[in-house]
């Protein structure tokens, strides 16, 4: 990362945030809602990308961190009537705690074993949400409408059920996670994570405790997943076990690969492209997943490094 590119890097990422700020006034309500969802899910993918793209660890269990954030925020909102800010903190804390335990156990493995072990733990988590259905209400889930007290910011009262508020909550979540990701991958920590991805043995012989760094990457990744999970629960007003199922572990993997793993903007681009592809295809045919599948295969064959990865290779090698 040369000094002369720093302003360009900041410029590109600020441009995206400002574009998203501006879009809410011009797009119709349907896209308004869709964009809000995309931004929160992109934040989830950003967390996933820190682990896959920068540390080289492919997890197939991130749904448990997403759902831990969702339940960690949703259950206290639903049963205890806490405020939304407290709920977000509880959601983050839940996934953070879970990731420390899971990480300590699973990071003894790597490669395919890590993939399988994380998937198994996530299945345990998913089945637990079904087993304790008296609390979680299982598959059916629960609706948060009526459980979201307005937030008071001084004289300002913020109502979270208002679409404008939801959009901007999603945007703030996305911006924070994008900022964390951008800062982290350019920091000394990010340099070590990339080194672990490239050659863990060598990194250790340079004097780095690679286990500790991998655990750090996993907990940050999980905390971001938990944060986005808790925000997703609030903006959709719904918490359910389906978000803990394996599909929600596969999604961030696909979004990240499609957008470009190991690029800061890739997760957003991947999430946006895929969500819009599904939306568009489902309008024309009921077997839209076939269309989505074909497009995915074509994209991955054309751009094996992902969309942003291909862009970076050709036009902007300085992009982090």
């Amino acid at each position: 990362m040369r000094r002369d590119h720093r302003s360009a890097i900041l410029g590109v990422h600020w441009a995206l945030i400002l574009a998203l700020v501006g879009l809410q006034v011009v797009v119709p309500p349907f896209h308004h809602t869709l964009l809000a969802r995309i931004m929160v899910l992109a934040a989830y993918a950003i967390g996933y990308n820190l682990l896959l793209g920068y540390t080289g660890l492919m997890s197939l269990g991130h749904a448990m961190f997403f759902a831990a954030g969702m339940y960690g925020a949703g259950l206290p909102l639903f049963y205890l009537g806490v405020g939304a800010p407290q709920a977000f903190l509880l959601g983050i804390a839940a996934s953070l705690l879970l990731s420390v335990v899971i990480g300590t156990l699973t990071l003894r493995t790597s490669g395919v074993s890590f993939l399988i072990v994380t998937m198994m733990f996530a299945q345990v988590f998913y089945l637990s949400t079904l087993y304790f259905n008296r609390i979680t209400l299982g598959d059916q889930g629960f609706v948060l409408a009526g459980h979201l007290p307005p937030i008071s910011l001084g004289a300002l009262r913020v109502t979270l059920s208002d679409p404008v508020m939801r959009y901007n909550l999603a945007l703030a979540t996305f911006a924070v996670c994008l900022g964390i990701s951008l800062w982290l991958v350019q920091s000394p920590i990010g340099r070590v994570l990339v080194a672990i991805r490239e050659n863990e043995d060598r990194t250790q012989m340079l004097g780095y405790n690679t286990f500790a760094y991998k655990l750090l990457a996993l907990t940050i990744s999980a905390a971001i997943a938990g944060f986005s999970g808790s925000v997703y629960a609030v903006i959709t007003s719904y918490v359910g076990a389906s978000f803990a199922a394996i599909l929600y572990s596969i999604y961030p993997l696909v979004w990240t690969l499609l957008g470009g793993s190991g690029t800061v903007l890739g997760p957003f681009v991947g999430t946006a492209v895929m969500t819009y592809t599904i939306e568009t295809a489902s309008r024309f045919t009921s077997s839209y997943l076939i269309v989505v599948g074909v497009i995915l295969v074509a994209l991955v064959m054309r751009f094996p490094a992902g969309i942003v990865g291909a862009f970076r290779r050709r036009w902007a090698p300085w992009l982090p």
Partner: protein
Amino acid sequence: MGSVAAVTALLETRALSKRFGGVEAVGSVDLRIERGEIRALIGPNGAGKTTLVSMICGRIAPTSGRILFKNREITRTKAYHRVAFGIVYTFQISSIFKHLTAFENVALAVQRRVGGLDRDVLAREVGEALAHTGLAGARDRPAGSLPHGHQKLLELSMAMALHPQLLVLDEPTQGLAREEIGAVSRLIQSVAGAATILLIEHNMQVVLDLSRRISVMDRGRIIAEGTPAEIEANREVQRVYLGP
């Protein structure tokens, strides 16, 4: 503790052994390296040299025996802690980060020592390290695209940037052209003032140029130790290298 020698030894192994299943790769090795020396470790392929230094660096755990660094027990110490103590290893097969630039490679080593939060300090130290090995021009090139000789030099830059007290070099001239060997030799000589060096090397010219003390390994044991002249005259060594 009383003797002078015990105080000056930088590294000491006592009855250090490693068994892989039924094979004894290293058997009861007592090795003493004094501060400031360039010690050569030679021996035929499969003698156990790399296994021995791997135990010293903490890449593999010994089956039995002890390792002392500056009179401190490090037998069970993790490899990354030993790097912090000053034991630095360069790999036999060049093991740089091929997809990262030369700058990033050396930055990883510098950052281990200075922290890396101050970008200016980092850039300056990396620049100096690259200039020292003549790689300043390769700063922003992916390490994997450098010629083999330059990759070896980069590996040495990384090792030196860690400011080692004991630098373990595993065949640093392997696969290099003659003029490149000269450059690596001079580089090792230039580090020797600041660091003690343990050098595994097959090229006898390099060994004789650099080192005043040689240890010879065969079948997991140290069979001879002494000055180059003593080693050349040693019957056991002749038998190992030339056959009975």
